[in-house]
């Protein structure tokens, strides 16, 4: 090796901040959605904000990995870059699976009461254990109201909070 080559080889290469920030952005996108963006219908129903984060992460990783290989004397990251890129792709894949597939695995409910059908009667226990019938809910005044019976009841079937 010439003195020049040796000097270049020993010069400290720059930290490849892009691959690391891209990776962190991709990883942050997942809890970012489930802890923050879910609170607003506009970013929950179609998680465009989260996909933007993944796109930004992808861009940073792409530029970072390219530099690691094209300017290998200037930048580090030829090993970390591809690994972080694959992990980030994994995070995006997981997110896509959760929001595009898993959350849609709902049974069709083809036989559920339609508009115009009579809602099937029921008698179920409320939080105090008292048995309550649908007909009672429709005919008795609502708690806290001035005594009029309700114009309607909204039956909200939910998964439960076990």
């Amino acid at each position, binding site marked *: 090796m010439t003195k020049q080559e040796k000097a270049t080889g020993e010069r400290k290469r720059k930290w490849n901040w892009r691959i690391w920030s891209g990776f962190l952005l991709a990883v942050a996108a997942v809890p970012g959605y489930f802890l923050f963006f879910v609170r607003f219908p506009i970013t929950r*129903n179609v998680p465009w904000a989260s996909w933007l984060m993944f796109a930004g992460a992808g861009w940073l990783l792409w530029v970072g990995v390219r530099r690691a290989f094209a300017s290998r004397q200037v930048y580090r990251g030829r090993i970390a870059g591809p690994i972080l890129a694959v992990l980030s792709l994994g995070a995006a894949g997981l997110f896509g699976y959760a929001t595009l597939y898993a959350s849609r695995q709902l049974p069709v409910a083809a036989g*559920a009461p339609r508009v115009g059908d009579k*809602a099937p009667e029921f008698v*179920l226990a409320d939080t105090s254990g008292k048995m309550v019938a649908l007909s009672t*809910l429709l005919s008795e005044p609502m708690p806290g109201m001035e005594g009029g019976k309700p114009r309607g009841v909204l039956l909200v*079937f939910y998964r439960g909070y076990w």
Partner: protein
Amino acid sequence: MSELERRGVWPVAISVDSPEESAALCKKAGYTYTFLSDPNAELIRHYYLLHRGAGVDGKDIARPAEFLVDATGVVRWRNLTEDLRVRATPDDVLKGAQLLP
């Protein structure tokens, strides 16, 4: 929810949670409307809303659905979401409430 009540609509939440579990939820969240317990998912089945094995430990639970029932017991509006993440907004329900006679 109080806007709904102001329009004469009473919310009734139904799930497989026990009365105790629902009571704890109401206490924590400050809900005042009716919570009913369908522990064996019998009514859920009757309404064709069963989601087999989707609960913790493979418990049968309800898939999400809302029905606005008028004073005569007839369904006037319903919402059967195709995606767990997409829920009817209070505005959606209020628009449905306009369909009540």
